[in-house]
Each structure stands twice: as C-alpha cells, then as structure tokens.
C-alpha cells in the first residue's frame, strides 16, 4: 500500500509517500525514525495488522514548513529520510 501523508492547499502539494510493502520487512532497521531531525516518523500497526512507518499526525498538515530545513535551501543535497530508507519506501512529492 502506498500511504500519502500530507495535504494540498493553495501553496502546492506536500505529500510524503510511504510504500508499506517495502516498509514491512525493513532492511534498514527502521533508520527513518532517527534520520529525520524532527522525529516525524513513527511505527504503527496499520489496519491490516502490518507494522509500518508513518508520518506522525501532528506533522501531516505542516510538512511544507517542517521539511524545509532538509531541502536544498537548508543546505542538504539529499533528504535524510529518503537516504536512510535504503528499501526506497519513502518519497517526497515536492
């Protein structure tokens, strides 16, 4: 399942997509949890009883601001979360 966490508003589309099929048997030892400087990820048991990563609810309506430090304007050339997720489950829409 591809879970798109985020929103679309007048300023654009801001979604972090997590491919839960790649996330279930994480070969990166859940590195996303510590890679994100703001600790935006958590592990939840989804509706189909799989343990997967998810963006915390408190961040899903403010991604454009919360992720800005990790974008090129913040000095990063690659996103810490997508780099840490070696199975390639995490993607940003912007």
């Amino acid at each position: 399942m591809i879970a798109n966490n985020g929103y679309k508003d007048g300023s654009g589309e801001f979604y972090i997509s997590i491919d839960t099929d790649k996330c279930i048997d994480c070969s990166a030892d859940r590195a996303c949890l510590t890679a994100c400087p703001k600790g935006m990820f958590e592990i939840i048991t989804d509706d189909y009883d799989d343990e997967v990563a998810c963006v915390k609810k408190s961040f899903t309506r403010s991604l454009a601001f919360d992720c800005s430090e990790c974008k090129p304007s913040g000095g990063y050339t690659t996103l810490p979360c997508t780099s840490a997720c070696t199975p390639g489950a995490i993607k940003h829409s912007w």
Partner: protein
Amino acid sequence: MSAELATPAAEEKKEFWRWQENTWFDESKNWRDAKIITCGIDVGSVSSQAVICCDGELFGYNSMRTGNNSPDSAKNALQGILDKTGMKLEDIHYTVGTGYGRVNVPFANKAVTEIACHARGANYMGGSKVRTILDMGGQDCKAIHCDERGKVTNFLMNDKCAAGTGRGMEVIADLMQIPIANLGPRSFDVETEPEAVSSICVVFAKSEALALLKAGYTKNMVIAAYCQAMAERVVSLLERIGVEEGFFITGGIAKNPGVVKRIERLLGIQAVETKIDSQIAGALGASLFAYTLMQKQAKAA
C-alpha cells in the same frame, strides 16, 4: 419600524445546508436468524452512521448529523437503528468504530481508519470491479485505490483545506438560500457552462460567488461554477494516485449530480452506480471488518 421588519425575517431563517437524515432496514430479513450480527459506527466530522450487518450482509442503517460529542453521536446513531429493528446492544456480537471520532465510540471492540473502511464498503456496494474510490466527506476528501477484495493499495487524504468537501457545498447552499439537495439539479439549468470559481479555497470561492451575483450571473450559473470548481479540485487529488475503471464515489457529495457528472466529464469515465446510500460506505465497511474479525476469532477458537 425597522425592528418590526427585522423580527419576521429572523424567525423565517432556514437551514438550507441541512441534509436529510434517514434510517432503513431490510424488512424481508429477520435478524434473529443471523449467526453473527456486526455493527459499524462511523463518527464523521459532519455525519454519523450506524450500520448493522447480519452474517456479512447489510441489514439496516441510520444516518444522522454528528453533534458536539462523539460518544453521544455514536450512541444516537446506533439507537436510531436499534429502535427500528427491535434489536438491543447486547444482540450485536462485534462493533468496529471508524471516522475521525472512532476512538470515542464507547461500545466499539476495535477502531479501524475510515480509509480502509470506505474501501471495504465501496467494494461491497459497487462490487469487486471497484478500483478507484473518491470519498467526499463533510470536512475532508480522500482518494483511494483498492484491489478486488477492497484492500487499500494507495490513498491520499486532504483534511487541511475545505475546498472539495461537503462543508464547501453547505456554505454555497446558505449563500444562495437554496436547499442543499436542489443544488445539483439546478446547476444544469444554465444555457452555457460558466468558468469555475476558485478551487483552492472555500472562502475565496464564496467571495467570488458573491462578485458573480453582483455582476449579473443567475444563481444557477453561480452554482454551476461552484460545482465545476469542486469537481476540478477533487479530480486533481484523484490524478495524483491515478484513476482506473471501476470508479466509485462515497460520502454525501455523491448525492449531488452537479458535482458527480462534472467529475465524470473531467475524468472521461462513468462512476459505478449503487442503490445503497453513499453516505454509509464507511460504517458499512466497518461492519464488514467486524464480521471478518469475528470469523477470525471463531477459527482461532
């Protein structure tokens, strides 16, 4: 003089946004014959539904407005159908809560997200061919992809902005002073299809609608422009996850042909039709989840 004029007008204030609450149950069935009775409670931001299934088949439902208290809304929704059928809470074997108030359903055995429940409900209502689901709720909008069993494969939700939600349509109903159920049919009563108003914000859309009325647009043209804006908004969400044949719309806006037909026109596909109330999809899915969980428990025992 002015006070005399103001009083009758205030008394005549109508709630144009108010939609029809309804209760239904299958009188041809006797719930006492069922081996497993399950219940799904969907406490949404605007409406609450209780659905009862007997052996995995829809038996009855009650759909009403959500109050300011989620546990009470859940109880009232369920009581409405229990009273009609003569059933008691103790007769229900398993209850699943869903919707934004799902964790506040006091008698629920489990909570499941509305995304999974809508997919399951749409799969039951539209059949196994349903692949793309648009849930246009009271205060959010969801685009969901599912497989032939109704399991979610891709989804996105927009709950930050009211554009493309039922609340937006309620605002326009009040502004136009036209009952919300009449908006859809009236949106087709125009000579030429107007340009859409703002699709990014309900507040801006309302301001634009007022400006159009002042510019000489008829009410029907303004409604058409708003329905088009709403359709464009939700289609942009759908395109993000991709649209496949087997397109199904759930939620209250599915009852508005002015929006549904325009979505179909933009996507170039017809929505799958159903005779079941589109608003109960989430609660129906929850009730079906409850049935599956009961079966699993029975197998394990």
